């Protein structure tokens, strides 16, 4: 097994030795382990990409009347405000797209888990919105999904990606790291630059707890997808500017995993801590039991 990797260091080593990008290592690794053809794998990625695109469109469509229990409509508000945004309209549009997917997810719409349903807005928003600005075609965006997958595999392998195991840092943090690395490669950044971007994205939200009101994937999840997308863009920009993560990617991943283990169970999707435990959070939770 020539293309299997367990860490960022191993990934970079294969990439350097073969002279190939992170996305190409991921593609060959998947072919090697699954025995599937390149075309077959790219076709599945393309199919997932189309569902991702549709989930953004649905969430930003004024005709979409599907709502979650506590959420819906904020993605459109953000999009309409984009022209006046302090962070620039392209960043605001990306954030709106991330919220759109999270709202579609909350309203029982169709999404692609990346890496989970709760954090499913970040990667599509970053890849598709920024890809559009760079005039990237769908094949290039699928390359981005491969790069994101490589980073996600390393985090899942050495830490965790579920809110119930490691808090929100493990879900939206991983999604932001995946998106940051993908966008870096899409912007012609080197493989080690992509891992710096991923490391910074994880560092920026280390320790973030999972505290969903009423146990539902809505509050604060929709807004955590918003900040996750912004985090990914910022981390990518810092890395492309030549800023490095002082702590190497692999050590950041392990640190995140340990923080997740040390995190109190009240902060790991049990809806017993943080925002879920506030008076308003508790009142809203009582209202939504047995009701939708």
């Amino acid at each position, binding site marked *: 097994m020539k293309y299997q990797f367990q860490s960022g260091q191993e990934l970079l080593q294969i990439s350097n030795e073969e002279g190939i990008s992170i996305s190409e290592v*991921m593609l060959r*690794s*998947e072919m090697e*382990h*699954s025995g599937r053809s390149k075309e077959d*794998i790219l076709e*599945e*990625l393309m*199919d*997932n990409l189309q*569902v991702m695109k549709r989930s953004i469109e649905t969430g930003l469509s004024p005709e979409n009347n*599907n709502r*979650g*229990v506590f959420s819906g409509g904020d993605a459109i508000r953000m999009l309409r405000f984009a022209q006046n945004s302090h962070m620039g309209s392209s960043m605001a549009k990306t954030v709106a797209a991330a919220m759109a997917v999270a709202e*579609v*997810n*909350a*309203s*029982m*719409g*169709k*999404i*692609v*888990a*990346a*890496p*989970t*349903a*709760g954090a*499913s807005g970040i*990667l599509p928003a970053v890849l598709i919105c920024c890809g559009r600005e760079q005039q990237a075609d769908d094949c290039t965006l699928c390359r981005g*999904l*491969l790069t*994101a*997958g490589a980073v*996600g*595999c390393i985090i*899942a*392998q050495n830490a965790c*990606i*579920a809110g*119930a195991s490691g808090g929100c840092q493990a879900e939206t943090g991983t999604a932001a790291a*995946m998106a940051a690395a993908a966008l870096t490669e899409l912007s012609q950044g080197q493989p080690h630059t992509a891992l710096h971007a991923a490391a910074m994205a994880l560092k920026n939200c280390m320790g973030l707890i999972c505290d969903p009101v*009423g*146990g*539902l*994937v*809505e509050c604060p999840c929709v807004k955590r997808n918003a900040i996750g997308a912004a985090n990914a863009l910022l981390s990518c920009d810092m890395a492309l500017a030549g800023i490095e993560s002082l702590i190497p990617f692999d050590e950041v991943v392990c640190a995140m995993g340990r923080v997740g283990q040390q995190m109190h169970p009240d902060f790991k999707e049990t*809806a017993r801590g943080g925002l879920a435990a506030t008076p308003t959070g508790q009142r809203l939770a009582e209202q*939504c*039991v*047995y*009701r*939708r």
Partner: protein
Amino acid sequence: MKQFHLFDLIGPQMIGPSSSHTAGAARLGNVAWRLAEHQVRKAYVTLYGSFATTGAGHGTDRAIAAGLLGYPPEDERLRDSFALAKEQGCEITFQYSDEKRRHPNTAKITVERKDGATIELVGASIGGGSIEIQEINGMEVSFGCDYPTLLIFHYDRPGVIHSVIGVLAEKNINVAFMRVIRSSRHQRACMVIETDTSVESAVAAQIRTANPDIWEVCRL
């Protein structure tokens, strides 16, 4: 230790909001539908633990209903499954229990088939959309439906396993995992066989008649 691969991170496609409370729940309903030979006339569903308390908000009930109609977890009809069940004459009743089960996301589903026979299953959604079927008709089992699965209901008598395996060997079907559970000696028993390749309905029918002590074969 589990090795993660590309599509563990980029996928699956699913109906939100939760892989455990929605996608996993739909899969549990879908297993019941397959046990009922793709035709559920009536179903009684009991939700336990976190399924009971946050299930309504996560659409757990609608997801199970969609599964009982045969829809997979990524089917967009999931949101409207209650109306569709009514339309198709499938009657589904939900109950919520605070009884403690082994896993917090547990459902008990009793389905009535077209021929009037009922089958009861208990299953849990164990995270990320994965499920574990824990009981079938009161017999303890444990399988995830990740492989083509055969359920063979039979009497606990010598030679029954031999007859089943004989058919599979003849058809060149490899057994990945197998377990035999019995209620008590010489009484009702159940074989759970997970295979690498799917088992055609003709092969299942051949197994059904391979031994007089076998009374039912279900393909999941």
